């Protein structure tokens, strides 16, 4: 294992995060706070409790995930797309490192940032809404695994994209709809039966439900099943990212 390389990439990427701290952390926190004010405060006060949880509290895990998913995707994709765009990828290609080490460095840094971001939103949500976390360790585990999975997804996107347009289109056209339709703001049981079935094909459902279960002990899907599905996405994304690097997909002639 070339641990010097993993460390160097990780530090470099984390430095990028801290240098752009305002964009990296402040703006997602601001936009999440706006969600809480509108959905939690203004609209939530007129809503009924769901599964015995107040609506404002019910949407907290979903809102955290919206940011974690989009930020993981865009941060990790930019992390590897920029070297491709500027040409500095030549160094990664000529370095004595394996695909696994490249992933560890880049995705590790992106996921770390997402976990920090998730926790910060959690803390700032507490300023607006009264809630507690039933299983903190499970919550942390879900947060880490989800951050890693979507950072891997972003990394794949960054390797695949050959323009900034393509880079931007996936988070807006794919991630956002999946998250909004994935039960972030409602319980699946509130949907008509047909849509309940269709929703089950949305991977985000399992993420949101597993994560929400760690907060309140309630979920539309069994937590074991959620965990299994999340692990499946993780393994799939990792395999694709690894294969793309292994075959130098789109980065080597």
């Amino acid at each position, binding site marked *: 294992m*070339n641990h*010097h*390389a993993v*460390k*160097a*990439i990780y*530090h*470099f990427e984390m*430095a*990028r995060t801290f*240098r752009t701290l305002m964009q990296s952390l402040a703006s997602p926190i601001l936009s999440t706070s706006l969600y809480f004010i509108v959905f939690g405060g203004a609209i939530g006060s007129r809503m009924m409790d769901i599964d015995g949880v107040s609506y404002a509290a019910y949407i907290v895990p979903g809102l955290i995930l919206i940011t974690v998913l989009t930020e993981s995707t865009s941060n990790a994709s930019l992390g590897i797309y*920029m*070297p491709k765009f*500027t*040409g*500095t990828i*030549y*160094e*990664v*290609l*000529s*370095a*004595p*490192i394996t695909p696994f080490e490249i992933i560890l460095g880049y995705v590790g840094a992106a996921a770390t940032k997402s976990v920090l971001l998730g926790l910060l939103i959690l803390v700032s949500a507490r300023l607006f809404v009264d809630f507690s976390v039933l299983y903190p360790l499970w919550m942390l585990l879900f947060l880490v695994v989800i951050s890693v999975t979507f950072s891997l997804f972003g990394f794949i996107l960054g390797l695949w994209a050959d323009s900034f347009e393509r880079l931007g289109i996936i988070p807006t056209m794919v991630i956002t709809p999946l998250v909004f339709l994935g039960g972030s703001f409602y319980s699946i049981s509130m949907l008509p039966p047909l849509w309940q079935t269709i929703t089950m094909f949305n991977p985000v459902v399992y993420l949101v439900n597993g994560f929400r279960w760690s907060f309140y002990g309630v979920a539309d899907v069994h937590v074991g099943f959620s965990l299994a599905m999340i692990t499946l996405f993780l393994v799939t994304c990792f395999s694709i990212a690894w294969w793309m690097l292994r075959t*130098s997909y789109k980065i*080597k*002639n």
Partner: protein
Amino acid sequence: MNSYILDIQNLSKQYPSGHKALNDVSLQVERGKILALLGPNGAGKTTLISIVCGLVKPGPGSIQVDGLDVIRDYREVRKKIGLVPQELSVSMFETVWDTVTLSRGMFGKPADPVYLESLLRELSLWDKRKSKIMTLSGGMKRRVLIAKALSHQPDILFLDEPTAGVDVELRRDMWGLIRRLRDNGVTIILTTHYIEEAEEMADRIGVINKGELILVEEKNTLMTRLGSKNLILELAEPIQQIPEALAPYGLTLSKDGAQLVYTYDSHAGHEISVLLRALQEQGIEYRDLHTRQSSLEDIFVNLVAEGV
């Protein structure tokens, strides 16, 4: 220890587009020497370097660095190699120090601020270490690329067109640096289409044209072997035509009849004195004479023209 630090055997490369960039290239490079690869644009120089460094997938053939296979033992091989690419590919928003630190780590070396400081000082970058790369001039950016390539103390340094778009002063500096590296045992392989650069720097010269390595020679041997010399005689009185008796020497007469040019190869024997005697016998007086040796540029132009 293998005597060749780089040993390429029968390497070919065809791009997916169908373009055949390299055709059966074999090349051995001795340790601690400077090899210049000369060739016109699109000759295959960059492809050759890129394959050795891992940027381009190799075609058929074998490449060994210090006795190790570039594919099978890529980890060991790449630790030994530093690459300065042709394009100014740098992370614009990073500082010089951060980007050099990244490079060293990426090539598997533990942090060594003392070495990096001496490297940046050598390249006159120390004062700029905290500057973002985007604020640097083009020449400075190129120095950053060199610093990155040397950050892990490689045994072989590849420089792809190192002085393209670089001013004269920086070019001289760079040549000095490359010589010092060579003196410290680093093998240097550079591509260039500045003949002057190859002539000035290289111990050996390889000429590539249309994907083929036309020749690899010691620079001095090459210049002697292929270099022809001209003896130019400034005549005291212009002449109308070259006398019959001088025909065997293949002389050429300038238009104004004031200059006679004799072409001979540089390891000629006593032909010059014979010619001069013959001139005297013909009563042709000259007031001055000088010789001119063909430059590498002439040699190169001839070689590439022959290859067409």
